[in-house]
């Protein structure tokens, strides 16, 4: 019976080009398409205008060091107004102003000023640029202290020890370059897997209701809602297991992403995740009488869902209402487990609350989906239609 239901689903999808596009083409196109954006992982060479009113050896050295950093691409401007205008036009993302007499001040042991203005409306590049130039400023300061101490008669080894008495040793774990691509891509891939499945399932289930074929579907399962649910879901389960395997092997390799944890544990949580998404998608679709409307609204769920999973913004910082919505989504505990296994080499046992949460949602969505299917099932409808 399961096989008959599976074949019925295959026929239905083959006859509906919208479902063919969503379920067979979209996952593959999206995963390569979106993935390519972050293939360089980090943004580099952020254009920054520099106005050097000092024009000395020290200012030139500083500018060269800044330009040599991976993060900044120096665009020289002759006036502060020109530098501002360049930022206003969108050609540069900020400007650095080096005051006249900087070298002279430094040599005479007076503190000199350097002004850096960054366009923080562009969140990511501005904070990276500010960090990089601050670091160069600190290094330059250490160089000045080194020269001063050596002039005072200290040998190189001693003065090196004196220059920086307390240093920061930054050790970013599980993403050694702290880059955006390594952080975002695994989550993005999981999100593509979920959304293409949900949009396809919801659209397809809404189409069942729109075409009045729910009773025929249920009767093929002998009136057993559970059989009907998992018979229909079997096709999606097999298809999306194949996609998940493909994404986690081929796409991860293409995008140079690593799975730090156990592949088997990843397989287990992915299977549970897909099993919880199937009733959720069918239930959502059955709430609509129009395939068009179901598809339209599911598309608008993508960004809100991703934003409230806690992947990009900590769940602890969200209002209680938003947290409650987030806890109703299988992707929230799944991403907790998946991020742990894929990016941090954790075991499922390290995140058991997430596992119980995911299993609980699987039961919850299966229960409400079965209830909805039974409420829409009219046993006599097929006979009457016949």
């Amino acid at each position: 019976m399961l096989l008959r239901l599976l074949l019925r689903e295959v026929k239905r999808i083959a006859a509906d080009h919208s479902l063919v596009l969503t379920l067979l083409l979209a996952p593959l196109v999206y995963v390569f398409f979106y993935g390519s954006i972050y293939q360089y992982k980090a943004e580099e060479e952020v254009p920054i205008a520099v106005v050097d009113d000092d024009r000395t050896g020290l200012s030139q050295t500083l500018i060269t060091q800044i330009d040599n950093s991976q993060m900044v691409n120096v665009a020289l401007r002759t006036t502060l107004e020109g530098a501002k205008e360049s930022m206003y036009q969108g050609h540069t993302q900020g400007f650095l102003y080096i005051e006249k007499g900087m070298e002279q001040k430094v040599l005479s042991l007076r503190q000199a000023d350097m002004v850096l203005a960054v366009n923080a409306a562009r969140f990511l590049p501005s904070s990276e640029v500010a960090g990089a130039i601050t670091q160069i400023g600190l290094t330059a300061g250490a160089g000045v202290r080194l020269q001063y101490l050596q002039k005072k008669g200290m040998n190189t080894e001693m003065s090196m020890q004196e220059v920086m008495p307390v240093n920061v040793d930054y050790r970013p774990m599980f993403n050694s370059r702290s880059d955006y691509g390594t952080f975002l891509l695994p989550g993005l891939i999981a999100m593509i897997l979920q959304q293409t499945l949900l949009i396809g399932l919801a659209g397809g289930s809404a189409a069942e209701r729109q075409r009045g074929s729910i009773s025929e579907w249920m009767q093929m399962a002998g009136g057993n809602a559970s059989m009907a649910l998992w018979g229909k879901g079997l096709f999606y389960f097999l298809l999306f297991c194949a996609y998940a395997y493909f994404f986690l092997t081929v796409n991860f390799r293409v995008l140079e992403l690593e799975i730090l944890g156990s592949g088997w544990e990843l397989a287990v949580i992915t299977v549970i995740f897909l099993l919880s998404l199937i009733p959720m998608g069918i239930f959502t679709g059955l709430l609509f009488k129009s395939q068009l409307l179901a598809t339209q609204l599911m598309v608008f769920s993508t960004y809100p869902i991703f934003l409230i999973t806690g992947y990009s913004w900590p769940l602890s910082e969200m209002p209680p209402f938003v947290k409650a919505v987030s806890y109703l989504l299988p992707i929230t505990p799944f991403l907790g487990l998946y991020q742990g296994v894929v990016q941090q080499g954790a075991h499922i046992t390290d995140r058991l609350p997430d596992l119980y949460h995911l299993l609980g949602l699987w039961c919850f969505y299966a229960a409400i989906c079965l209830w909805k299917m039974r409420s829409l099932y009219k046993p006599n409808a097929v006979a009457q239609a016949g």
Partner: protein
Amino acid sequence: MIRATAQIALREWKRILTRKDHYIVLLVLPAFLFFFYAFIFDKQQAEDLPVAIWDDDRSAVSRQITFLLEQTASIHITASVSSENELRQLMQEKKIIGAVHFPKNMEKDIKSRHPVKVAVYTNASALIPSKLVYKDAAGVIITVGAGVNLQKFMKTGMTEGKAMALIMPVKLQLFTLYNPTYNYQHYLVPGLVTVAMMMMIIMVTVLIFNKEWEEGTEQELAELGKGNAGVVFTGKALAHLTASWINFALVFGIVFPIFSMYHAGTWWSLFVMFNLMSLACIGIGAMVSVIMLDVMLALDFGIFYTSPAFVFSGFTFPRWGMPWYDQYYAAIMPYTPFLDAFFKLYFMELPLRYAGPEALRLLLFIGSTFFIAVFFLQKRLDKTQTHAAPVTAS
């Protein structure tokens, strides 16, 4: 001509208000979605993130640094660990986002002029909290280092000013313009809202002509427009343009003021650019709708075309960091020039003239898509009337 255009616009408004796939997307969903976006980031900044201390020194200095770390906005000390494995385990269990390690003999080394390294560990697979913790921890440690140097230099008889000049010969004055506190809500919500507005327009306008053919009302439409595609198109475009004004008013008149995101004096120039974007989206949607008579196929096209707009526009990840082919794709979406203009007009509060290049690009979208849409619509209307004529005659 004007009367016919007005009649079609009025008829289109009636269609918007009576079709679920129109009014839910254009009038109901926006209110829910825009408030929800703003609500997610209501706290604006991530604060008090759980951090562990690994103190192998157990000295007055390590306790002082721990105290200073606790005073920062992002760090909240929640655990004490005694090894790297232990802190790794706590990160894997999602109990901490970072840790700070004070090495053994740190205080002694500082006093005996041996440099020390204070390690800052962060879980960089959670990038945003990780960067916040690092920024605050590094700030405290660098300040402590500067304090040590200051004391040393002053002990040699140096004045405080000269000592400071040695510690920081070049003082970097940092101005983070347009979002000085890196407020996440003020940064992200305007982008999310505007991209949703763009998607809503396209997702409905891909249905404006093919739905007429699906419902069999194309003859009525052709007659009302006197067979003139320009009139029919203009009437429908006017209705959708005015519908988009409702969302503009919702965003800039209600949502942004409620969440303190309204930038006074920017609404007029934003309204001009928003109209250009809306018209470009209407043009794209109408073009697809008239070419693809299959409603679901047109909707699928709308989904494929609009879904990537946010990430490709360069809002979160700059376009110059993307491969060249992705940059080309970004260029064929009206949201990209709109976003560039939006940065200038909304965040930077610049006069409208700075958005000239972006306005020109949007006008190119409008010109080309309107032309194609009207051309194909005329063909379809001609065909409709040719088929209808014998029926009417008989």
